[in-house]
């Protein structure tokens, strides 16, 4: 009676219990041999887990053993309550319905042994959860992601809100520079009216491929156009016609890259993170280019590395480039960091 089902159950159901005394360093990881993940990943276009067909199945009991194994693996290696939540999501994505029939077989979208491998990679290689399941929930979207493409961050969600506050934004032409998974382009594209459009560029062919996939999945092919190339290069035909530009360009100073958390430093693409010596290389290029890319009265919003970087940019655009821009503002992210610089083209 003492260990009756409901409360072992409830801990799995309700919350990953915290285990404050179990923290152990990720000793095996610092020596992980693979700082740059599979460069040929673009050829391996697997669907996000939750979109794959239910081609497999496993007995409820096997799935339960997987869960128990995965929980103990998670708890033995790191003190992170989110891991157990991730585990539930992994199983959510991998299995069919929230309410499986009470058969002993659960339909699955991946073979059970694949789930074991995925979870081992999560714990032992610190492979990001979002790459495991091939998607990230961002705003109200579920975006496909995979190695080679930056996993969109929650801070960036706010850029869409900033655009939504711009007068007449619904009918304008917008650019999302360095679109990655297409997050911003899709977030904005969904708010536009018929005549509104988003041009989204990226240098990375992985990003272009994933962004196209996501745009298509949200039925936005007519609104969001993905173009491959460096920053403004693919946008020559709309130069001076843009109602707005948004970008979350790589902004981490090169020297900080080795110190990043393993999920980021070991697995996310360097092209998406490396902002040059002081992190400002791309931002400066984008600010400068916006002066001619935007139409008069056009809006811009850039995400930066925070505080000092935002202040530096804002000062620069107010003072030195004041003849091109006005109404320059710094916007805080939810953690209170000066994260975004916004303004208008004269």
């Amino acid at each position: 009676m003492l260990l009756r089902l409901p409360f072992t159950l409830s801990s799995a159901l309700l919350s990953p219990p915290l285990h404050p005394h179990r923290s152990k360093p990720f000793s095996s990881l610092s020596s992980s041999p693979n700082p740059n993940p599979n460069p040929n990943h673009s050829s391996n276009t697997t669907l996000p887990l939750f979109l794959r067909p239910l081609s497999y199945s496993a007995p409820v009991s096997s799935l339960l053993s997987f869960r128990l194994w995965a929980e103990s693996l998670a708890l033995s290696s790191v003190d992170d309550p989110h891991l157990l939540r991730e585990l539930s999501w992994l199983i959510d994505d991998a299995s069919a319905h929230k309410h499986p029939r009470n058969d002993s077989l659960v339909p699955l979208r991946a073979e059970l042994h694949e789930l074991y491998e995925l979870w081992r990679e999560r714990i032992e290689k610190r492979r990001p959860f979002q790459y495991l399941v091939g998607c990230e929930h961002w705003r109200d979207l579920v975006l496909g992601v995979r190695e080679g493409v930056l996993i969109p961050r929650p801070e960036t969600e706010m850029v869409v809100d900033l655009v939504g506050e711009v007068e007449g934004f619904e009918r304008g032409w917008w650019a999302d520079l360095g679109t990655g998974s297409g997050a911003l382009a899709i977030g904005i594209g969904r708010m536009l009216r018929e005549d509104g459009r988003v041009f989204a560029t990226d240098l990375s062919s992985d990003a272009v491929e994933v962004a196209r996939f996501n745009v298509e999945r949200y039925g936005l092919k007519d609104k969001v156009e993905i173009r491959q190339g460096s920053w403004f290069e693919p946008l020559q035909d709309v130069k001076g016609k843009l109602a707005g530009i948004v970008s979350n360009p790589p902004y981490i100073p090169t020297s900080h890259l080795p110190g990043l958390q393993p999920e980021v430093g070991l697995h996310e693409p360097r092209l998406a993170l490396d902002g040059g010596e002081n992190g400002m290389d791309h931002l400066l290029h984008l600010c400068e280019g916006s002066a001619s890319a935007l139409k008069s009265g056009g809006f811009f919003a850039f995400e930066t590395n925070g505080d000092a970087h935002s202040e530096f940019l804002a000062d620069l655009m107010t003072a030195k480039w004041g003849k091109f821009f006005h109404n320059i503002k710094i916007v805080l992210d939810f953690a209170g960091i000066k994260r975004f610089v916004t303004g208008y083209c004269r």
Partner: protein
Amino acid sequence: MVFSLLLKRSKTPKPLPLPLPLPLPTRNPNPLRASPRSTATSPLGLSIAYGAGALSGTWRPSRCGEASRSSIAPLLGLRSFSSPATTAAIAEPPRTCDGLTVDAIVGKGWTILDEGESDWRSHAAAIAQSVQVIKKRLQWGRMIDKSMQLSAILNKSDLWDDPDYAGRISREHGEIMGKIKGVNQFEQELVEHIDLLKLAREENDNELEAESMRALLEMRRKAKEKELEAILSGDNDSCSCFIEVQAGAGGTESMDWAAMVMNMYMMWAQRRGFAVTVVEEMPGEIAGIKRATIKVHGEYAFGYAKAEVGVHRLVRISPFDSGKRRHTSFAAVAVIPILGNVSTKYQIKESDLRIERFRAGGAGGQHVNTTESAVRIVHIPTGISATCQNERSQHQNKASAMAVLQSRLDQLEIARQAQMNAEHTQSLSEISWGNQIRSYVLHPYRMVKDLRTNYEVSDPDSVLDGDIDGLILSFLSASLDKNEDRA
């Protein structure tokens, strides 16, 4: 979440013991029912309809006097005659030819025998008793008053200047009238069947007598269903709801108990076919939860769950005590309706909100990848807050937290307007730890007992696995039945 629940259990959900409440059926169970109707206008300007007998003294004597079957036969064709939508009930109840009303039948004190016994008095007494129970549960007197008030408003000439308001009033009026008519019709059927049965006896018409007896029996069964349906007729009963559970003092022991209670509700909701989502949770350090909120989505979720408000007490040998001593733990439960009607919602001003999001400290942005995206929203003027961390994006966590906050503020508003029975609107912070409603004893004996109704279940496991309908319904019916009807 729900999925993982099933992973750990493979028990088939038991069939629901009760049908979900549905609008009262309007089907006429008895093809022989003769119900000529008259319409008249009351002093209040309400148009009134009642079945045979109430108003039409003109023809009743002839029917009840030397009436013969042939004089009734032509009336059989009038069954489909229905009254206009705006009719209200009137004070005068249907009577049999010899003047029996539902109350008079109950007053006779006829013995109620088994359903199997073909005794019309027993059937009639059982039905009449049910009608009284139903009326009490519907708060009949209050309902009639309300219908009159609404009719009066509906008769105002400028009503439709505000079509939104008018629409709401007329919808509400329609709902109430539907309930009133349902009961009136039922009473009417009862007296008619009694009349027919007596008539059949006088005329030695065995076939008609058997038919009337069958009709009474069917009514008797239907009356029991209607009694149950009437339990959930409160203003917000049909809403979805949030259920919140908070651990009492006593550390891990109580937190574990709180998790068991929450689990009981999740399994109960699942059995009932409600959709459950975990909205907010503060896990305990070692086991269980300090506090958690789930959303239970489905028709009548609030109507049932409101019976659970209060403190739940557990007595058991603690699994956390190496000395194997007996412990008593407490968990408080609050239930908040999710109001469907937008017009009653509390208007939240964006500027009154402080939104806090939890993220790993440090540089944030591109530096960090975490799936933690909890959001907490504080409504500054009231200090009420809501947290959500179980959605997979921050945006969604914010939306969920906002929904919880909205409902908490709505609840406050409802309490303020005193539109509801106060005990069902308490928030967790208002529930006194002294307000124990149920006790679950696992040791030295095994028993769950509702302290309000003394309803007992000797199998705590089944209760903790979500089989709580018995406890809920006995409480709801007891609390409704003791409420004095202001009729």
